[in-house]
């Protein structure tokens, strides 16, 4: 199991990182999730955190939803099994590590904290995400980053090691989406279509190339600035450290930067 890496929402500035979960024996709790309904399981987690648990290891998770939703503390939770939909929904603070894949809606309206997935994730990852960070080692489904937003210095980040399915960054209005497509060679093209449809804020970085016909009508490609390079370097190094992969290879790019063409793509839709 890789060492937990902490990337507590550090909006705007990427210097503030802190180590979570002092690994003291009394802080570590193991919980068997088998047969528990999600309400019961989330209640148990809540009570454990209230009582000061710093590291919780869940065993046998099988589709329980909303895990981590109401925990407003910096607790480290490791999930064995398959967590259900809306993992970390509205989450604000915890560090969740999934040793496997996540289902749909992971990070829904998440406010802060980190989710690390040692596998793949399903559709609408980071739906309406407002802050915090999600790292996915492999691939993701449809509409990742849909309605993701940012406010002043609070800027959510999603880094995906593999590729994404269609409608990546749909209606995105803020935040940072990085797709590393590590299985693609530097001159290979992303299979993802309708990228950034309806996008009106935030930024998407794709490693590799993309056909312009696959982009949504509301996005355009922009050249990378020094600030972009610095941001990519920061997030990719963190990603590589987390999943023990080669940052240098990934950093070689090339990268495509996608930004919205307008802040209000549909402003004139019903105005004639």
């Amino acid at each position, binding site marked *: 199991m890789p060492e937990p890496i902490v990337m507590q929402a550090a909006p705007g500035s990427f210097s503030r990182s802190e180590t979570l979960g002092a690994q003291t024996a009394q802080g570590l709790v193991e919980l068997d999730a088998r047969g528990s*309904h*999600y309400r019961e399981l989330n209640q148990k987690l809540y009570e454990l955190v209230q009582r000061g648990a710093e590291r919780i290891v869940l065993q046998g*998770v*099988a*589709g329980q*939803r909303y895990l981590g939703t109401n925990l407003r503390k910096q607790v480290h939770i490791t999930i064995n*099994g*398959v*967590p*259900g*939909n809306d993992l970390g929904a509205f989450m604000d603070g915890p560090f969740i590590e999934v*040793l*496997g*894949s996540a*289902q*749909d809606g992971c990070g829904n309206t998440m406010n802060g904290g980190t989710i690390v997935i*040692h*596998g*793949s994730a*399903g*559709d609408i990852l980071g739906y309406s995400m407002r802050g915090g960070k999600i790292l996915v*080692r*492999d*691939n*993701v*489904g*449809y509409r990742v980053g849909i309605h993701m937003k940012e406010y002043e210095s609070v800027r959510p980040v999603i880094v995906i090691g*593999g*590729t*994404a*399915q*269609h*409608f990546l960054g749909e209606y995105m209005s803020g935040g940072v989406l990085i797709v590393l497509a590590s299985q693609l060679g530097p001159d290979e093209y992303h*299979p*993802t*279509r309708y990228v950034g449809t309806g996008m009106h804020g935030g930024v998407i970085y794709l490693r590799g190339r993309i056909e312009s*016909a696959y982009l949504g009508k509301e996005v355009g490609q922009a050249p990378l600035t020094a600030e972009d390079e610095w941001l990519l370097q920061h997030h990719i190094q963190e990603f590589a450290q987390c999943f023990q992969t080669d940052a240098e290879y990934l950093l070689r790019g090339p990268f495509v930067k996608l930004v919205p063409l307008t802040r209000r793509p549909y402003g004139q839709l019903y105005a004639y």
Partner: protein
Amino acid sequence: MGWARVENRYHDDKVYDACGLFGFMDTTGTRQGGERIVAAITNMRERGNGLGAGFAAYGIYPDFAEHYAFHVMCRNEQARSELDSYLRKRFAVVHDEPIPYRHVHGIIDPPVLWRYFLLPQSAQMVGRSEEDYIVHQVMTINSQMEEAFVFSSGKNMGIFKGVGHPEQIAEFYNICDYRAYLWMAHTRFPTNTPGWWGGAHPFGLLDWSVVHNGEISSYGVNRRYLEMYGYLCTMRTDTEVLAYAADLLMRRHALSAELAAAVFASPLWGELEHMPEDKRRIYRALRQTYGPLLMNGPFAIIIARNGEMIGLGDRVRLRPLIAGIKGNTLYISSELSAMYLAEPGLEHTWIPQGGQAIIGRLGEPAKLAREHALQAACATELNYA
């Protein structure tokens, strides 16, 4: 007033669902009990609300493999005896019996449930093929008898469904006692009708069965088109059109599952433009010919018949559907967790591209389903640590 209208009191013909689906098929034809399908569908508790659940199982009646197995539900004994005499006039009834069930807490007012093993009598078929005769009789019963429905009418297969949670319906029908090589299950979440026994999934006709999550927004045009071919929609749920459309396209018009999927979830016009010419001609012709069978709106479905299981989602993937394989068994599910409960040793799991069919066939290696999926422009493999 008919039974459907009593139980479906707002007279809705279209129900908005947020359901859970599960299906698996051993492509070698080895039969197994229902425990795993019950565990899988029960796990997706949040996807249903207790107002409908059901199972379809293939290979369960080997002793009557060549007979049409009619599962019927009747509102009362009188309706059952009317249906009984109707069937005996039109078929050779080889065997009939009550569908075994047990009382389950929470399952209230079940209908009278009976099964018949039938052979059509050729003198009465008057120019129809055997299958068309069955379709005609099922349509006649379901549209004209107000208190009796045939909800399963295929050979060597059966649908078991009702109002309740999946674990209750499974217990009610003793689902674990049946042995099938292809299992399908559904848990239903109707949001604006009370739900009724006939409206639970799967929907069937001949050996077709369909489970569905979502909403067929094109129900009106689909239904009108199917009526021209003699299919009458009587179950007051949009899913019904899928069963009839499958029968029309894949049995009567002999389209492959791949082509039928391209009718239900046709590639967008913009995608047609980017296809190679020969492929574009086929897909354009399908769209021109079968435009009224395009299923619009958000959906994920599993369609099965003897020897074949097809999973399909809408073109822009507005409902979840994932696939997995272990050995020669193909799994299709709304959620990954349920699939792992049914088979902890899954070898591969993937998210198909919207509109891309997942197809399992008897006698074909299950891995073909994965190979076809990965040839699509954008399927996501789910890797497991």
